[in-house]
């Protein structure tokens, strides 16, 4: 029974609990057990089985009382450890916040609990969401449940939402929250054969989410089906007066309007995404994706996004610049780590605390960000990058005059073994080359599984929509899902 339950997704659990096929408590117990058995993946920083049970019991009681169970009623989920959770350690996977228990709950997690979800635990991630392989966490690497055929090497689950992707792919959580600054939902989803959508910037409140790069950070769901993403995104999103960049718009019922019929829709194929270094298997799956969408009724058109090649460099100026300022608050004064050697003054405390508290990748980005904002460099770097960002956004505007949706690969390669890229930050950064442009433009973008490469590793296809048009993205994702028939699951080794 419990193994069957952990194979279920969000929609199946919600509907099954509602129909009385099983109780929410049974579901929570099954996932709690699966989480406990999967310690080897290191997907969780802390587990909260009691919280999952408590939420489940609430749902069961509501059902007994004949009350509405909510959009996520009875569904236990994993919470990326970037979201502040009241009374539960929230670290951003950094030593500098180790032991920090917020007195507040992030808006997104609060929305999910209000919709009936429960928390299995706090998921591991790249430290402060900076990384593409989940190797920068203070709490250790996360392993993907997937392995190359014929190899026992531990593979990267992608990053920064690597704990989320690993847990959902391993079926120790039916769904998880992610955050995406420059691909941190889509790339890990692609690496692990699951779905993940980054909505339009402003759909999900950033209040209570540890900030990386404020103008780019956006939360979204990660799950194994497009329907599950639609349901969970609906529960997460909504205007929040506590976030000045929050969208003051109603949240559509994405689940109800799901349709894989793309008749009359035009799908743009950006020519600039044919880059050197892209795997043949990726290019093949892109061709396959075109065929699937055509089959769903769409017309395929070539489009141009001419500033694509400048997007990644601009991103690696803007994101670190914002991060260098956003992370200034971790200073040892009010909360988190304080390293105060005997007789030290304020400056020594800052230096010692931040040297001990931040990991190498975080320090690297703080240094880059500080540099590009410095007097004499600001115009050449930060201002120039902002201009590029505006041009990238304009590329999309012009492209969307000719199409309703853009299809591209999510990543240039499939997953790689842990440890194989982390000596070379530039190669690591290239992982997000296809994901970053949509982040700079604030557009909704999703990765859906397309198949396996010759090594037996998952590949993802990326769909980018117009601002506020998550529906189009989800619908096209559904069309691919129906045709790809991706039912592969990693073989359990943990």
């Amino acid at each position, binding site marked *: 029974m419990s193994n069957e339950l952990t194979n279920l997704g969000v929609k199946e659990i919600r509907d099954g609990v509602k129909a009385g096929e099983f109780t929410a408590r049974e579901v929570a117990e099954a996932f709690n057990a699966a989480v406990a058995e999967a310690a080897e993946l290191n997907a969780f920083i802390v587990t909260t089985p009691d919280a999952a049970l408590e939420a489940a019991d609430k749902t069961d009681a509501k059902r007994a009382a004949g009350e509405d169970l909510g959009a996520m009623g009875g569904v236990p989920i994993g919470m990326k450890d970037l979201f502040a959770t009241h009374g539960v350690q929230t670290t951003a996977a950094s030593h500098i*916040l180790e032991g920090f228990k917020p007195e507040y709950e992030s808006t997104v997690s609060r929305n999910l609990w209000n919709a009936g979800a429960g928390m299995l635990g706090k998921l591991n991630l790249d430290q402060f969401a900076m990384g593409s392989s989940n190797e920068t966490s203070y709490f250790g690497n996360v392993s993907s449940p997937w392995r190359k055929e014929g190899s026992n090497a531990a593979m990267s689950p992608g990053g920064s939402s690597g704990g989320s992707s690993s847990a959902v792919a391993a079926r120790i959580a039916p769904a998880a929250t992610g955050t995406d600054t420059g691909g941190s939902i889509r790339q890990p989803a692609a690496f692990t054969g699951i779905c993940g959508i980054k909505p339009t910037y402003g759909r999900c409140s950033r209040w*209570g989410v540890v900030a990386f790069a404020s103008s780019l950070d956006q939360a979204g769901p990660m799950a194994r089906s497009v329907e599950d993403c639609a349901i969970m995104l609906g529960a997460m999103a909504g205007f929040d007066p506590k976030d*000045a960049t929050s969208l003051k718009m109603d949240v559509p019922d994405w689940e109800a309007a799901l349709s894989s019929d793309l008749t009359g829709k035009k799908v743009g194929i950006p020519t600039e995404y044919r880059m050197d270094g892209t795997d043949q298997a990726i290019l093949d799956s892109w061709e396959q994706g075109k065929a699937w969408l055509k089959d769903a009724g769409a017309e395929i058109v070539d489009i141009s996004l001419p500033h694509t090649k400048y997007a990644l460099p601009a991103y690696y100026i803007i994101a670190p610049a914002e991060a260098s300022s956003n*992370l*200034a608050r971790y200073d040892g004064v009010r909360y988190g780590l304080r390293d105060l050697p005997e007789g030290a003054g304020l400056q020594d405390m*800052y230096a010692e605390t931040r040297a001990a508290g931040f990991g190498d990748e975080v320090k690297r980005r703080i240094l880059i960000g500080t540099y590009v*904002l*410095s007097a004499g460099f600001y115009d050449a770097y930060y201002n120039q990058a902002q201009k590029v960002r505006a041009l990238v956004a304009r590329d999309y505007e012009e492209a969307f005059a000719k199409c309703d949706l853009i299809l591209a690969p999510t990543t240039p390669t499939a997953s790689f073994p842990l440890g194989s890229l982390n000596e070379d930050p530039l190669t690591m950064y290239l992982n997000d080359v296809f994901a970053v442009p949509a982040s700079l433009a604030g557009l909704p973008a999703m990765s859906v599984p397309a198949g396996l490469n010759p090594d037996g590793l998952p590949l993802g296809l990326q769909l980018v929509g117009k601002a506020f048009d998550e529906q189009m993205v989800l619908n096209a994702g559904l069309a691919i899902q129906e045709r790809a028939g991706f039912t592969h699951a990693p073989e359990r080794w943990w």
Partner: protein
Amino acid sequence: MSDYRIQGATGEWEVVIGLEVHAQVTSNAKLFSGASTAFGAEPNSQVSLVDAAMPGMLPVPNAECIRQAVRTGMAIEAQINKYSRFDRKNYFYADLPQGYQISQLYHPIVGEGQLLIEADEKHGIPEDKVIGIERIHVEQDAGKLMHDQHPTMSYVDLNRSGVALMEIVSRPDMRSPAEAGAYVRKLRSILRYVGSCDGNMEEGSMRADVNVSVRKAGEEFGTRTETKNVNSVRFVMQVIEYEANRQVDVLESGGTVDQETRLFDVATGTTRTMRSKEDAHDYRYFPDPDLLPLVLEDDFLEECRASLPELPDAKRVRYESELGLTPYNARELTHEVETFARFESLLEATTKATGKTDAQVATQVANWALSVAPGVIKSIGDEANVANATAERQASILAMQDKSEISGSQAKEIFEIVLKEGREPDEIADTEGLKQVSDTGAIEAAIDDILANNQDKVEQYKGGKDKLFGFFVGQTMKAMQGKANPAVVNQILKDKLA
């Protein structure tokens, strides 16, 4: 033109002054959080999660603070920028939880404006002068460090952290300590009229960064120093005096003035180096990505404009032209919000009590408000309960005086009793016998008596000794115990001695 000059060994030096005034915005809540702004609360009792910069906390602009900045801009006839933006000023300090101050460097909310300082010959301002204001921007205040709570540690109080400030930046248009003092006083007056800042310098609601340089007449501006956080008009003037003389000494002994930030020492009245240009921070300003640009709608601007009260200059002109007050009285009455408010309510009550127009009683009311009433209050010191001195009671005193029912000295006596005991002036005048006698019968009787008893003097008067008229008046008043209406006494005496 100010004739203020520093007399150096090499000749006269002119002083050039610019002021950056930080004014705390009057608002119940902080600039980007809902926390309270009340002064004097227990340390760290008015700190929201946002003010403490907890992870994931976000700023949301407080519309009231924006409104107050816009209204202030309008009050100095400044350009209001419909598009403005917040920038982060990055630096580390223990009183700055975010590690940056949210301010407005590139696109301030208020642009070019101006302020008039009035001629004040006595204090070295020979004529009215317009001082340019470059900009007003809004920004967050920092917290406070307390170094006296523990032998080796410093404590942090974040009550002020995040409180909204307006930084009002003048042009380097002032040329003497007196002009700078007048500028700060006038600015304070305008802020208090508008209600955008309480102007309380002791509580730190207003403080100035004082930029001073010196030059020989006709030369380019010299290198300036900036003295931070000066918190009274007197100190602003002291800083200028000291800095100007110091800079002249430096220059005349062959040195150069360093562009630097200085601190004022209240105890010695001197300034000293805080940090030099080489130590200056690189604040790495950039647009705050947590906040969208601030775009002001026309409706909002109209509402701001409509809510502006009559401002000091307009009020002063109106007091002279419509109420016929002297320039001195008009100026004295319009400096302070409390003063004009008291005057106007007393004026209204007095027109009601006398049935006369504003212009007919304004001078009497102004003299009462500026000199008579404060004199009485001062003379009885602690015994005065000013709460007893309602506008209605004072107006009824003025009305009795207007009708010659009481004399000026009786008015003061009655007011004294009002202050001490809170009784009604009419009743006091009756029961305490503080009323002039205008009853001609009683006065005539008294005069007849006096004339009969002083036949010799009557003869002398009639013989040409006019001065004796005063003697008869005095005798009559004495006989009437000072309560006779002098006009009536004069008239009857004249008739009888004719």
